């Protein structure tokens, strides 16, 4: 009993030490918000096209029965990081041959059209979410956000903020490769 009592401070110190080690890990971002959507079916929605883009709008049905994972990107013409991310997404589509769907968040169709005309349109489908309601269903915390959706309509991965920088891009392409392998088997 006495020995146990002497061991207590050591045990307490160990527990606290482990906690601090976890807390001080530079890889850990305390601002990340856990997503509940991962491994769950994508929300049900229907979004009209953005007039003039020449690509159709889309709904939940379009996320199911694809032969490969699809990337869903929430963007807006007024969102500055989206502009930076646009080039990355364009390259992903060109190099990986992946299908990219866009949710145009709280954006006037004319503004979105002007933005796409200026930067190019890598999106196979764009849905106009003017009131931002569908984005809420996706658990949006801020534009841009990018999801990988499996062929069965399950959300596999979520990236908050622009897919920019080596670490973010590496994580994203790894997740995409995993999603594709899962789809193959």
């Amino acid at each position, binding site marked *: 009993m006495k020995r146990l*009592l002497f061991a*207590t401070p050591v045990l307490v110190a160990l527990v606290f030490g482990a906690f601090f080690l976890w807390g001080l890990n530079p890889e850990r971002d305390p*601002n990340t*918000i*856990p*997503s*509940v959507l991962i491994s769950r079916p994508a*929300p049900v929605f229907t979004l009209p096209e953005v007039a003039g883009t020449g690509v159709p709008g889309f709904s939940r049905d379009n996320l199911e029965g694809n032969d490969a994972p699809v990337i869903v990107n929430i963007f807006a013409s007024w969102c500055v990081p989206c502009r930076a991310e646009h080039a990355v997404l364009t390259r992903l589509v060109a190099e990986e041959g992946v299908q990219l769907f866009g949710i145009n968040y*709280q954006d006037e169709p004319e503004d979105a059209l002007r933005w796409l005309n200026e930067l190019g349109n890598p999106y196979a489908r764009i849905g106009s979410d003017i*009131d*931002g*309601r569908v984005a*809420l*269903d*996706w*658990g*949006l*915390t*801020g534009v841009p956000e990018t999801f990988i959706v499996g062929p069965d309509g399950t959300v596999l991965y979520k990236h908050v903020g622009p897919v920019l920088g080596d670490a973010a891009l590496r994580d994203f392409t790894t997740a995409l490769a995993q999603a594709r392998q899962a789809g193959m088997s």
Partner: protein
Amino acid sequence: MNNQILFALAVMLTSATIALAVEPDEMLADPALEARAREVSQQLRCVVCQNQDIDSSNAGIARDMRVLVRERIVAGDSNSEVLDAMVVRYGNYVLLRPPFNTLTYALWVAPLALLLLAASIGITVIRQARRTHEQPDELTTEEENALRSVIDTQLPTESRQ
């Protein structure tokens, strides 16, 4: 005079800080429903500002969430159904008061458990410290004899003068 100016200033400043984020066009016509919406909104975390409820946040997403809360209340949802609808989208994270479930037992129970642990350690230590102050055991006959022999030994008589 000075006091009056100070008072006016205080009123102006405080009324500016408590100015509501809820804008008139969001509000429901029915005061009872609006009151419920306010109550629900105060339990929901703004996902952009993180430590503010959506009722007092000016963030765009907070506004969208308030509108959604009101729509659901008008559609006949109970307060807890509205909260559940938000949890489906954003997880328990969106609740300012974490629920009591298997994931949060540690959160709720840890303070109490730590308090009990600290108290039990404290009590044991105090008890042990007290025990040493108790009456020492009686002397054994052997010890008593030894003591007596010491006491009975004649002191070397010094020259009494």
